[in-house]
């Protein structure tokens, strides 16, 4: 009988790995076309260790997964997603309450901002993580509401002008494309919701 953590790890990894062609396509439009391959490499490395990760307490598993992403991804998204995971691992207790999740997620977003020297509105993963935090924070938040916030906010990066990352080199030409990091964040958040809810 797989544990919840086991299911969480496997669902997230499977979704990111399966999204490789889509992320590659999005990144070829406004970046250097490596986001799909990089994320796939990182999450495949997590999958290799999934049984040992799943045997650890949640904070330790998150820290270890974050470290794997830092070491294996090979692009800026490694340190960025790695920092997200490692900060969650540092901030979450082994059996987190709703309040713990809100507080830890806020801290993780701040850490990603610092790591990327960026903020909301620059057409990045932060533009999904911010609205997701807002959705999680609402009293009585549901998995549906969180998934909807992730999907809507990823769509909302399409008309945005990129001011951070490779896409910013394109200036106005970055408008009209979904940000690949926003999309991978949406996929990740949706996978977490599905695994925790049990619909994956």
């Amino acid at each position, binding site marked *: 009988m797989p544990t919840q953590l086991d299911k969480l790890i496997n669902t997230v990894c499977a979704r990111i790995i399966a999204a490789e062609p889509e992320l590659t396509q999005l990144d070829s439009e406004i970046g*250097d076309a*490596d986001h799909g*391959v*990089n994320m796939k*490499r990182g999450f495949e490395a997590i999958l290799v260790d999934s049984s040992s990760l799943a045997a650890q307490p949640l904070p330790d598993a998150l820290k270890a997964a974050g470290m794997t992403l*830092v*070491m*294996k*991804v*090979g*692009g*800026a*998204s*490694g*340190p*960025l997603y*790695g920092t997200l995971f490692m900060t969650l691992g540092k901030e979450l207790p082994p059996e987190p309450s709703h309040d713990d999740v809100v507080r830890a997620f806020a801290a993780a977003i701040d850490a990603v901002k610092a*790591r*990327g020297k960026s903020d909301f509105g620059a057409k990045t993963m932060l533009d999904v993580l911010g609205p997701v935090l807002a959705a999680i924070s609402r009293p009585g938040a549901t998995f549906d509401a969180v998934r909807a916030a992730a999907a809507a906010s990823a769509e909302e990066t399409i008309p945005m002008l990129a001011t951070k*990352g*490779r896409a910013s080199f394109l200036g106005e030409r970055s408008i009209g494309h979904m940000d690949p990091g926003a999309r991978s964040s949406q996929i990740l958040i949706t996978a977490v919701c599905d695994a925790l809810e049990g619909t994956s």
Partner: protein
Amino acid sequence: MSNVGIVIVSHSADVAKGAADMVREMVGNEVPLAWCGGDPDGGLGTSVEKITAAIDAAWSEAGVALLVDLGGAETNSEMAIEFLSEERKGKVVVCNAPIIEGAVMAATEASGGSSLDEVRSVAEELSPR
């Protein structure tokens, strides 16, 4: 060696090696020098592991200056620095400078025995303010 070390981090191993060749031509073996490029699978990109190894290879008690190309090279370099021991962490900087010109200028400055701060500011003079 007591001169500041130089590390070149590019998405492309060819670029990093080429820049290192230009540095060597300028300063010979007077400056500890290392380079790395490519993601963990050898494609275009950067790797924290390779950057860490390059910092080790160019280590000097006077410090190490990193010259990087684009976004991920900088983010991964900052990550690699954070993973260093407390003792080493404060002696490694990422220069805000063009990678090739910055590496040659920084190494030339370092070869004269300048401090890490001096090496960094000479490289950063190349960047628009």
